[in-house]
């Protein structure tokens, strides 16, 4: 705990709401990106999982839509300090997409349309922890929120949930992504407040 700030009392603490350290609650859905929003038409969209041995597994938009989907309700925690609770999504679990992928890799480097990348351990994408999400709050996912489809990995800070996702490269070595190369934490667990390298 830090030093007490003279004259600071904070908001009334809503009973039963527990946020990761340092976070505050928002009701709207802030939009933060490092660059321009790519506009990808559904017919031009494709998603590829490439293994460390060069095998490629690819899905077109209709192929993604044909897969069984889930409707997770999850909390979002952004490293810029806001948290949004109880958000409703629809998407395909990564477990479904990885069903026929043969790999011994430990790490994943996620690629987006527009050039964004982010890295995480492969295990954080599996066992019901991550989705390729294409609907938010009952509507098609808007481009500013990452549409047509984004990665959703809600147990990590939101920069890991890459917008405009186009593929996952599996790697044996951990390779830092965009923000991870710029001083942000390699893993990014909000409950351990892993915002920056060294946290």
């Amino acid at each position, binding site marked *: *705990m*830090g*030093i*007490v*700030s*003279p*004259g*600071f*009392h*904070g*908001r009334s*603490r809503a009973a039963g709401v527990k946020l990761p*350290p*340092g*976070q*505050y609650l*928002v009701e709207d859905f*802030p*939009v*933060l*990106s*490092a*660059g*321009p*929003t790519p506009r990808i038409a559904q017919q031009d969209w494709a998603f590829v999982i490439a293994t460390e041995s060069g095998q490629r597994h690819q899905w077109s938009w209709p192929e993604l839509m044909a897969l069984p989907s889930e409707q997770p309700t999850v909390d979002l925690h952004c490293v*810029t*300090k*806001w948290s949004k609770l109880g958000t409703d999504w629809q998407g395909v679990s990564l477990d479904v997409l990885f069903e026929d992928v043969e790999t011994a890799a430990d790490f994943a480097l996620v690629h987006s349309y*527009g*050039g964004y990348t982010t890295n995480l351990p492969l295990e954080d994408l599996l066992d019901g922890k991550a989705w390729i999400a294409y609907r938010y709050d009952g509507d098609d996912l808007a481009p*500013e929120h990452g549409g047509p489809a984004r990665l959703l990995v809600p147990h990590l800070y939101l920069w890991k949930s890459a917008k405009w996702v186009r593929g996952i490269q599996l790697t044996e070595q951990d390779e830092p992504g*965009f*923000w991870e*190369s*710029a*001083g942000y934490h390699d893993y990014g667990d909000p409950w351990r407040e892993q*915002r*920056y*390298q*060294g*946290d």
Partner: protein
Amino acid sequence: LTGRLAWRVATLVESRAETAAARTLVLDVPDWPGHLAGQHADIRLTAPDGYSTQRSYSLAAPPDGDRLELTVQRVPDGEVSPYLTDVLSPGDPLEIRGPVGGWFVWRAADPDPVLLVAGGSGLAPIESILRALLDSGHGDRVMLYFGVRSERDLYHEPLLRDLASRHANFSYHVVLSEQKGARGRRYGLVHEAVDADLEEVEGLMSYLAGPPVMVEATTALLAARGLAPRQIHADAFYNQT
């Protein structure tokens, strides 16, 4: 945790009004490790019962020893910003850590023409970059577009005017989005003014900071005008409550 990202206890030296709703806090931070123009810092407030919350603010000036400046926009009903603008007094302690952010920065080695676009309190990091640029003797063109709603939201114009009088390669344009007919002012959205003026984009480096809508519109414009992603450094931010 030690080093750059350790929490430090700063002392408020001075709080300056910039507009009716914005104040610049001048902080003394012992052993501040220095920062690059465009980086930000996190501040942490703690209540007597141990409740604690954090916010991020852009560093508003180039490094100056242990002194640094943050510009805070007061958000009505906000939790932290009214405390920083209205309660925190000179001599009070404030916990801070940083600097953080390595993408939205300008490094002295970049020789290219620079386009700066600021909206509202987004001027803080932009001005930090601008001052570092001009102090370094940057010889190429530097163009600043500063979008605000009306004259009353405008701040730091004397400083901009002074910089423009001392640096022939620097020009700035104030664009008012909600006040038509103000003398010597352009009217409209700031990205439209950029679009109307921009000719050569070869080698241009751009830095945009301000409300997300403005940053989004400007990044879309610059991409459409042929700037590559590496030429666009965008820092969209919400006024921190």
